[in-house]
């Protein structure tokens, strides 16, 4: 073929230009949807609110009601946006870095350090001092000596028991020590019928649940910046876990979803979950009275009188600096501390409030399960110490993978945890 001449080249160029022009026509205008674009509103009456709950069936109506109530009362415009929970952190990080997102943002308490590292979160100390939040709740929004998040809901991941199964097994009292816990599990195991005594996490994806057990056995996990995973206490915890595994008191290949399914079907006596578990399990269970049989219990301690360990869990609202940040901070305070609002929110979604007044509201205090959980489990719950590192997820994965290696008999607890600690050290940044 002869080479292309100038006319042909121009034709191809023209065609390409036409294509690009056609595509550009599909571009949004300056006010296109999405979260919290700068609208040029100098009065800052427009801001964004980004929340995964805005798109979750169980919560979206309740969250939207809070947004609408504040918007109409304060005569502001709130642009809402939502991303799926599992993709949320990546999406929000990318959009904040790209300058595409500002205003109020819902966060899981575990993500606060990662967000703080972007350097764009507003210090909400002035709002926090006025909100009447509980100490444990406030701690969930603190990072680097600043109050970067206002606590929206504060709970914990703790143990839940099925009292009906325990009664059948002859366990009349909830176990308070690890020894009593083992005895109860052994009795439940004798029931047979495919019942897993303790639907503990044994899949690597969820084996971070071993961390509160390590603390129960006396490991601080992190001492200053020194990772203590691999110390005698954490090794003892993993060896104990392995012993439960070998005795079939916990089952292989279980993650949180499997554990919930087992518990919902009446096939597990104990499992770990957040306080919201009650509603989730009820939705999956053919037993309509299961919630009445559910009982929260503090994690058993090594010796009677010890402090039960639980992982703090919850949501905070942070404010990303930018246009409307002042109004967004006020909205965050309203959503998290206005007593009528938080009590109404609890009534709809059963997420416990974070203020003393909210917890004392009859709608909340009258709920026995929540009150018991808050008093017995959340009261002594502590944040995961690795959350202070942006790479906390990788640290947890490193530990989880090694614990799984122990469970399946590929390594000893001592060697595996030493390896985990070595890997984790490289991720402390």
């Amino acid at each position: 073929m002869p080479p292309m001449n100038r006319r042909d080249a121009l034709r191809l160029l023209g065609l390409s230009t036409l294509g690009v022009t056609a595509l550009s026509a599909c571009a949004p205008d300056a006010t296109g949807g999405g979260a919290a674009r700068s609208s040029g509103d100098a009065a800052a009456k427009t801001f964004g609110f980004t929340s995964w709950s805005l798109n979750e069936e169980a919560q979206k109506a309740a969250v939207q009601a809070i947004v609408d109530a504040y918007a109409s009362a304060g005569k502001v415009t709130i642009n809402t946006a939502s991303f799926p929970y599992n993709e949320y952190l990546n999406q929000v990080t990318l959009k904040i870095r790209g300058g595409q997102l500002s205003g109020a943002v819902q966060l899981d308490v575990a993500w606060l350090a990662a967000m703080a590292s972007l350097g764009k979160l507003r210090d909400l100390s002035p709002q926090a001092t006025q909100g009447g939040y509980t100490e444990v709740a406030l701690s969930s929004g603190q990072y680097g000596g600043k109050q970067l998040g206002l606590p929206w809901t504060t709970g914990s991941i703790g143990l839940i028991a099925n009292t009906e199964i325990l009664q059948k097994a002859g366990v009349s009292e909830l176990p308070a020590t690890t020894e009593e816990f083992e005895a109860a599990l052994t009795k439940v195991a004798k029931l047979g019928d495919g019942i897993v005594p303790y639907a503990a996490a044994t899949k690597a994806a969820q084996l971070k649940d071993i961390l509160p057990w390590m603390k129960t056995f006396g490991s601080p996990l992190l001492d200053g910046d020194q990772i203590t995973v691999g110390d005698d206490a954490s090794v003892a915890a993993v060896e104990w876990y392995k012993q439960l595994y070998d005795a079939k008191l916990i089952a292989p290949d279980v993650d949180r979803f499997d554990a919930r399914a087992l518990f919902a079907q009446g096939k597990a006596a104990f499992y770990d979950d957040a306080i919201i578990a009650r509603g989730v399990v009820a939705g999956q269970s053919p037993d309509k009275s299961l919630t009445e049989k559910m009982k929260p219990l503090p994690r058993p301690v090594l010796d009677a009188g010890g402090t039960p360990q639980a992982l703090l869990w919850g949501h905070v609202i942070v404010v990303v600096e930018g246009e409307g940040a002042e109004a967004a901070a006020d909205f965050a305070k309203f959503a998290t501390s206005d007593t009528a609002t938080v009590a109404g929110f609890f009534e709809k979604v059963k997420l416990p409030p974070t203020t003393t007044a909210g917890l004392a509201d009859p709608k909340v205090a009258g709920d026995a399960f929540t009150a018991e959980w808050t008093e017995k489990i959340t009261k002594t719950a502590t944040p995961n110490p690795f959350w202070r590192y942006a790479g906390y997820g990788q640290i947890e994965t490193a530990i989880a993978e090694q614990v799984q290696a122990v469970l399946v008999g590929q390594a000893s607890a001592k060697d595996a945890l030493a390896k985990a600690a070595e890997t984790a050290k490289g991720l402390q940044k």
Partner: protein
Amino acid sequence: MTVTATRSRTTTLARPVRARRRPDVVRSRAAAWVAVGLIGLFGLAPIYWLVVTALTPDETAFSFPPSLIPTEVTLEHFVNLTKNEQLFGYLINSVIVSVITAVLSVIVSAYMANAFSKFLYRGRTSLMHLVLASQMFPQALLLITLYAVFSATGLLGSYAALVLSFTTFTLPLCVWMLKGIFDTVPSSLMEAAAIDGASRWRTLHQVALPLAAPGLVAAGLFAFVRAWNDFIFALTLADPERQTLPPGLVHTYLGEFQTAWPDLMAASFVVSLPVIAAFMFLQRYLVGGLTAGAVKG
């Protein structure tokens, strides 16, 4: 009579041969059927599980141990779909961006492939490899780069951002696929058209492209499916109201604590139907298009 005799002779002759081969034939046929069965089971099991879960009531969907055959059946989850207007919006978005991506990919890659196949110029082979090399970049890297580019150009959140980003990963393979097809179009035909006075433009559009039609369909279908199934680009680059079905389904059914598996399965089944229909409708072109250019000469 002659016919009968011939038949009879043929039958007589054939019998010993068949008899000699039967054990081998039976064995190989049995092995083939077993292989087909296993592959079919492997391929269809997820679809079976998807349909069964979609038809199972919420209360029994999580029964333990799980049951292969549902004890109760409900159409509730399919009915729920019809009530969800948001999902319909995601579907429309998917159709829009997938069709435009397919068309754009085919148009651009057809010209590029023709240029790679029929024009001789310095650096042609390097350029072709460069096009393919772009396929090797990790998607996350492409995503962040595209995000920055679209953000700077104001395209972020638009259909255009989705179409252009999808085209970045459909184009290289489409070009290579079509290059093989244009190689099979005899240059003599195009030269004959040129001798008859046709311009290069006319030769391309009236001679080469019609001959490459099966390949164009195959490339288009490939691009359509890639665009239809993409999750992460659609989630990141589009505004909520322009998002496509994969992020839409995740948005709608997957939550922090709960996954509405039966509803998700029902929706997944329904939204895969257009792709299945497209494959069935275009199957004859697809097979021709994929194999064209496989053997030269």
